[in-house]
C-alpha cells in the first residue's frame, strides 16, 4: 500500500505530468463540447471566402467559406480516435509478440525477433502510403488499424527484453513450481510487473499514431469522408492557403497536433520520473 501511495504522491507532484494532463484534458474537453459551440457542420459553406478570424468566425473561414473552427472541433475526434485505436492495437500486438518471444525464448524468440527487426526496418509510413493508396474508400478506423498493425515492433522489442529478464527471476520459477500455466504466468506474474512500462508504451504509441495519421491525411490518403487535423492541412496547402496568406486555416490543426502529441510525450517523461526513482530530482 505504501508503495502505491508513494507513486501517487510523486505523480501529483510531478509538474510534467500535471501540465501534460491539463493540455490533454483541454483538447478532450474541446472535442466533446466543441461541436455544441458551433451552429455549423464542417462541410457547410457558411461565410465569405477566406475571412480572417472574427467574432462570428472565431478561426476564420476557408477559401470556400467553411468555418475553420467548426472543422477544427469536429476534426479532433478522428484525431483522438486514431491515436487510441492505433495505440491500443500497436500496444496489444507489441505485448503479444514481446511476451511470447521473451517468455518462450529459443526458436520462437528467434523467429519473432527476426520478424520484429524486419518490420522495424521497413519504413512503415511509406508502406502505408502504398497500401492505403490502393484502397478506394477509407475510414478513420481502417487508417487506425493499419497504423496499429505496423507500429508494434519497437514495443515488442522492448517488452521482449523486459520479459526476458523477468522470466529468469525466481518468482517465475516459483509460479512454475506452483503448477501455473505459461499463459497464467505471463498475465498474472510478468505483465503486472511491467504495468507502468506498458502504460508508457501505450502513451507513446498514442502520440505516434496521431502523428502518422496526420502525415497520411496530409498526403491526401486520410479518410475519404470527414475532417481531421491532417486533412485540414492537406486542403490548406492544396488550395494555396500559403500563397494567399490564409494562415488561420493551417495554423490551428498544427497547433492541436503539436499540443496533443507534445503533452503525451511530456506525460510520458513525467511518468518515467514517477516510476523510476533514479530520475527523480531530489
Amino acid at each position, binding site marked *: 500500500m505504501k508503495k502505491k501511495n508513494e507513486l501517487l504522491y510523486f505523480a501529483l507532484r510531478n509538474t510534467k505530468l500535471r501540465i501534460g494532463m491539463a493540455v490533454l484534458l483541454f483538447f478532450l474537453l474541446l472535442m466533446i463540447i466543441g461541436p455544441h459551440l458551433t451552429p455549423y457542420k464542417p462541410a457547410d459553406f457558411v461565410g465569405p471566402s477566406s475571412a480572417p478570424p472574427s467574432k462570428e468566425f472565431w478561426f476564420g473561414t476557408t477559401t470556400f467559406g467553411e468555418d475553420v473552427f467548426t472543422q477544427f472541433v469536429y476534426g479532433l475526434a478522428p484525431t483522438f480516435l486514431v491515436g487510441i485505436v492505433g495505440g491500443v492495437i500497436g500496444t496489444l500486438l507489441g505485448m503479444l509478440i514481446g511476451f511470447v518471444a521473451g517468455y518462450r525464448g529459443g526458436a520462437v524468440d528467434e523467429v519473432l525477433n527476426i520478424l520484429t527487426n524486419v518490420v522495424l526496418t521497413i519504413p512503415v509510413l511509406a508502406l502505408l502510403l502504398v497500401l492505403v493508396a490502393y484502397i478506394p474508400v477509407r475510414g478513420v478506423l481502417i487508417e487506425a488499424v493499419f497504423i496499429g498493425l505496423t507500429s508494434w515492433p519497437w514495443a515488442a522489442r522492448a517488452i521482449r527484453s523486459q520479459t526476458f529478464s523477468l522470466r529468469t527471476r525466481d518468482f517465475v520459477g516459483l509460479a512454475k513450481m506452483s503448477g501455473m500455466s505459461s499463459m497464467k504466468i505471463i498475465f498474472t506474474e510478468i505483465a503486472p*510487473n511491467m504495468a507502468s512500462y506498458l502504460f508508457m508504451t501505450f502513451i507513446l504509441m498514442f502520440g505516434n499514431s496521431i502523428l502518422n495519421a496526420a502525415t497520411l491525411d496530409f498526403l491526401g490518403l486520410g479518410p475519404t469522408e470527414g475532417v481531421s487535423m491532417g486533412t485540414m492541412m492537406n486542403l490548406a496547402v492544396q488550395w494555396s492557403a500559403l500563397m494567399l496568406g490564409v494562415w488561420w486555416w493551417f495554423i490551428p490543426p498544427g497547433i492541436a497536433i503539436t499540443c496533443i502529441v507534445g503533452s503525451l510525450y511530456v506525460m510520458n517523461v513525467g511518468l518515467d520520473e514517477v516510476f523510476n526513482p533514479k530520475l527523480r530530482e531530489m
Partner: protein
Amino acid sequence: MLKIEDITKTYKTGTFGGKDLKAVKNVSFDIHDGEIVSLIGESGSGKSTIGKMILRLISTTSGKIYFNDKDVSLLKDSELKEYYRHVQGVFQDPFSTYNPIFKADRIFSVLHEEFFPHIPASEWKGRVDTALKSVGMNPAHVLNKFPHQLSGGQLQRFLIARALLLDTKFLVADEIISMLDASTRIDVLNLLSDLRSKGLSVLFITHDLSLGYYISERAVILYKGSVVEIGETKKIFDNPVHPYTRMLMSCVPRLDKKWQDVEVELTEKKPMTANGCVFYERCHSEYKLDECAHQSPALVEVEPNHSVACVCCKG
C-alpha cells in the same frame, strides 16, 4: 528417493548455435529419504543448474533424473503438477522469489488455487497458520504484508512453510541463506535440519563449506560442472583428497584457524583443456601427470563412502 544419473547440461551460446558451453558434465549421485546432501561449488560450478534441472525449471541435455524410480523428464502436465506436490525449491534471493507487486502471502493462495481447490478457505487458512507456526512464525505478524515489509529470513521461512503445505518430500535449497543476515541465517539452517528429522530430504546447494559441514551428512564437491569428490561430509572435510577440495579447504576463511597456518599455492582460474581433468590448469598436486591434460579421471572410492576423481587415487 532422488537419483541423478549421468546428467549433462550444454548451453548453446550465441544465436545460431556456435559454441557449446557445458555447465554440467556427467554428474551422478543420489539422495536418500530424510537425508541432507550438500552440493558445494564456486560460481560457475553448475550447482544451481543441477538444482534447476531437478526442479524441471531447465531441461537436461542428457542423462536422467529419477524421483522414486520415475523419470522426471517424462512428466507431463498433471504428472508434473503431482511431482511439484512432492518436490519443491527455495532459492537464493528471497526478494526475487516474490513478485514485488503482490503481498507475500500470495504464494499460499496460489497454492490453494492450483493444488487444493476443493479445500474450503477457512480450512486452508488453518493449514497456513499451522505451517507458519511450524517454521517458527506468528501468522498474525507476517500475513497480509508486502515482501519489502518482511525480512529476508521471514521470506525464506515463508517459502519453507509453502513447501510444508504441499506434501513435500524433497526440497532443493539453493543458497537459501547466503543473502540473509548473519544473526538470522543459522535459524533457517536449523529449521531445515529439524524438518529433515521429520522425513524431508534436502539438496543443500551452497558455496560455503562451513554451512555444508554444519548441516549435511553427505557432500558433493563440484568444479566446473564435474563431481571431483563425493561422500560423507565428515570424511571429505577431515580428509580432503582432491587437489581442488584441498585448495578450497585452505582458502575458506575460518574462525578457528588463520590462513597463515595452512598455506597452499593459488592460481588463477584458467580455461580448461578440452577433455582432460577439469582442474588440470590449476592443479599443483605432486601427483599431477601429463595424462591429466587429456584424460578426465573417474570417481574412485578411497575409503567407504568417500570417492574422488583424481589420478592421485587411482592405484
